């Protein structure tokens, strides 16, 4: 019997062959005693193993086994924690980007408004810095006819 035939017989025994392939092997087994004997051995071995899955008990108590697992879980979760921060940052970025765009838009509108005099009050006032003394500021309110002067203290000479 060739190696291929042996493996085919095994596949037939394991139900891995379907249709025509299975029918051909069944016919071969029926006329060849050697094939029939090997098929019987394969089936007997399989039968012998049934219900004999290897059994072993954990060689330590529950009180010793679980803490080892729990400790590893904690270690792994601690190690995974930094990997969450890029996710958090990316979420923050997604939220902040529209807010930043809105803020920039408001700034542009404000500057444009100021330049076009849109926000200029009818109530006019000027602030001046005297060139002679950079520590002195003069405020003049034309409407009320008031003038205020700030002098830096101590006044520089």
């Amino acid at each position: 019997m060739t190696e291929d035939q042996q493996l085919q017989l095994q596949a037939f025994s394991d139900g891995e062959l379907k249709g025509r392939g299975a029918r051909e092997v069944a016919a071969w087994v029926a006329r060849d005693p050697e094939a029939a004997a090997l098929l019987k051995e394969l089936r007997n071995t399989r039968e012998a193993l049934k219900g004999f899955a290897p059994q072993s008990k954990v060689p330590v108590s529950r009180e010793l086994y679980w803490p080892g697992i729990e400790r590893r879980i904690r270690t792994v979760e601690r190690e995974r924690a930094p990997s969450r921060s890029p996710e958090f940052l990316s979420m923050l970025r997604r939220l902040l980007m529209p807010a930043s765009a809105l803020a920039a838009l408001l700034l542009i509108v404000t500057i444009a408004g100021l330049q076009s005099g849109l926000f200029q009050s009818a109530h006019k006032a000027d602030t001046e810095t005297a060139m002679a003394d950079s520590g002195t500021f003069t405020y003049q309110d034309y409407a009320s006819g008031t003038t205020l002067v700030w002098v830096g203290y101590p006044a520089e000479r």
Partner: protein
Amino acid sequence: MAETDHSSADDGALVRAAQKGDTGAFEELVARHRDKIYARAYSMMRNEDEALDLSQEAWVKGWQRLNQFNRKSSFSTWMTRIVINLCLDELRKQKRHRSESIEEMGEEAGGVERQMPAVTANPTERLERGELRQRIDEAMRGLSHEHRTVLLLHEFEEMEYKEIARTMDCSIGTVMSRLFYARRKLAGLLSDLRSEN
């Protein structure tokens, strides 16, 4: 706050609780299935320390991947697959560090077992259950990691050839060849027992 008693909950309820971060529920799952998971690791590694370490590692992986558990299989089957994969990874690592023996090369090729005459007598006849278990365990120990693993996956995890090939990262032909060799060797060893008796 009093701790929840999980002992009466079924596996499904415990998994749901554990998925929400309840480590107490997960501890109960570990207590229920730890022997099976350890037994799989031990049957593949044949080393108590490695089996203990890998079974614990499997539980950690299980905790990390709990949200991937889709309930298509039972929780214990799902966990068994995790420990099998960890053991296979470990065996691959170990294999890289050891040269293949002449005996193993012979096993891969089929060895003398391929030419052995068929054992038609039923090995389970006239044998006590305890004796048979002992002999099967001995015979399994006599197989290489690769052959034992193929046999375990096929006979006890009920995986098809295709699934075993995917799990073990080899061809279906290799799976068939290893399975055939493992069975023939096992048949020979069980037949020796009959002769002794």
